[in-house]
């Protein structure tokens, strides 16, 4: 898949709440967006951010073909993402795009796949859910957060499939973590998970016990984004592989997690 170094114009910067923004970007030269797959990511050069030397990898949240816009969900974690979240619309932002691999399709369409997201980990699940729906699958979502206000993009997810919610404080949906949710009583064709590592490990374990295939999206610290520097490696059954190139999507059977 061809990779590009492209300038984008920031068309919208919407605060989702204190810690998250939704950025919508379109190629600055007006050209159509290059092909991008669900699960892939972009590597962003944060403008005018003195403490940010390297690019910042961010999952592709959605591709709006009609409006020629790429959506990114950004959590204000460090200096780089805080700077990014503060960019005014019409800013020019340089990205290397698209990077990484994509999710695998379930083997069957008559059983629903479950897409499990925690915190900003919901980001890649929107684009993937839309794609699954388009291909005739009936994706369901299980989204977890600390509290109701931390749930992101619920309406967008609800437009694609059934949404199950778990909050730590019980302020919305079922109380508890995602793996405690009653939706696990059902069977699914495939489990996809993205979120904090302990949550992904728990989901992978759940999937294993149900003998359901499971893919997770990893976000190891990276530098180059193209498989050159070997910094973002994950230990797999094949040895160390680059999350930026062989991932970020891995079948949990490839990983050496204790599940």
């Amino acid at each position, binding site marked *: 898949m061809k990779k590009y170094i492209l300038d984008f114009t920031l068309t919208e910067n919407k605060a989702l709440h204190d810690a998250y923004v939704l950025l919508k970007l379109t190629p600055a030269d007006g050209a159509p967006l290059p092909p991008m797959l669900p699960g892939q990511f972009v590597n962003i050069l944060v403008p005018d951010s003195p403490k940010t*030397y390297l690019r910042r990898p961010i999952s592709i949240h959605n591709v709006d073909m009609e409006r020629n816009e790429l959506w990114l969900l950004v959590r204000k974690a460090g200096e780089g993402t805080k700077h990014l979240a503060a960019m005014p619309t019409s800013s020019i932002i340089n990205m290397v795009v698209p990077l990484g691999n994509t999710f695998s399709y379930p083997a069957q369409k008559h059983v629903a796949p479950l897409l499990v997201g925690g915190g900003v980990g919901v980001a890649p699940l929107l684009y993937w859910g839309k794609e699954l729906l388009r291909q005739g699958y009936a994706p369901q979502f299980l989204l977890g957060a600390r509290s109701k206000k931390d749930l992101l993009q619920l309406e967008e997810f609800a437009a694609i499939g059934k949404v199950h919610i778990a909050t730590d404080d019980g302020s919305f949906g079922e109380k508890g973590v995602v793996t405690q949710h009653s939706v696990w009583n059902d069977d699914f064709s495939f489990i996809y998970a993205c979120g904090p590592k302990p949550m992904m490990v728990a989901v992978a374990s759940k999937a294993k016990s149900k003998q359901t295939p499971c893919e997770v999206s990893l976000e190891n*610290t990276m530098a*180059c984004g*193209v498989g*050159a*520097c070997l910094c973002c490696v994950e230990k797999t059954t094949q040895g*160390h592989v680059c999350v930026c190139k062989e991932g970020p999507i891995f079948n949990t059977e490839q990983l050496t997690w204790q599940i």
Partner: protein
Amino acid sequence: MANLRVEIGGLQLKNPVMTASGTFGYGIEFADFIDLSRLGGIIVKGTTLEAREGNPYPRMAETPSGMLNAVGLQNKGVRYFAEHIYPKIKDIDTHIIVNVSGACIDDYVATAEIIASLPAIPAIELNISCPNVKQGGMAFGTSCSGAASVVKAVRKVYPKTLIVKLSPNVTNIAEIASAVEAEGADSVSLINTLMGMAIDAERRRALLSTVTGGLSGACVKPVALRMVWQVAHAVKIPIIGLGGISSAEDAIEFLLAGASAVQIGTANFIDPAITVKVIDGIDDYLTRHGFASVTDIVGALETN
């Protein structure tokens, strides 16, 4: 258009801009971004006799104007390289140079011999300066006798262009450069990474699995320039300068300090097309200042 050709120990480069080992993969990772045939050379990643898994994750930490890495020479070994990777890259129209590392002299020699048999590899860069593995050569690179012994042994079996990559983690880099020159090295490249460390204060943990790692990026440029300048006054063989080069201006500074060519490393991560911009920028500079050839500015720093 100025004449950008330079010569490094018998090797003719179409221009002085190469890529640094470990920052550009095998070149093909960047083929979407630039025309690889425009490069003066590609130095592919550190290769050892046997396959190495490298260090555990995490291997990288961002620092002010730079980064630390602790990759630790992850590679599939020289035989895998020769059988599986070499065929894919040998026809790229630029010089493919292999960076060679080892835990002991015999390893260096055996690896160099295998690389010597690959017709499309005109040179090796002997890495006696990897700070990230206990036996990554830095023990060789931090003493004159150690450096000399590796170069002497490899020189016997390696007839093509032999570049030696020097460690900056030494009291006197010029002495080491002289020692490897005396053993027949065709060129020295410097600097490898400075040994550094980063800590997560909140979690009270080192940010690298190995605690210490190699510092690179713009932050090291002043140290690299100084060492190139010192080595240029100590040796007659051509110098390949690297360390934080992020623009044509940076590259020109290294040439002025005495480097005959340069390598671009960490900057490839920030702008995957930086190499061609540097080549074009050097050309512009030469034209603008009225130099016919890039060799006219090598060591042309005026001091008084």
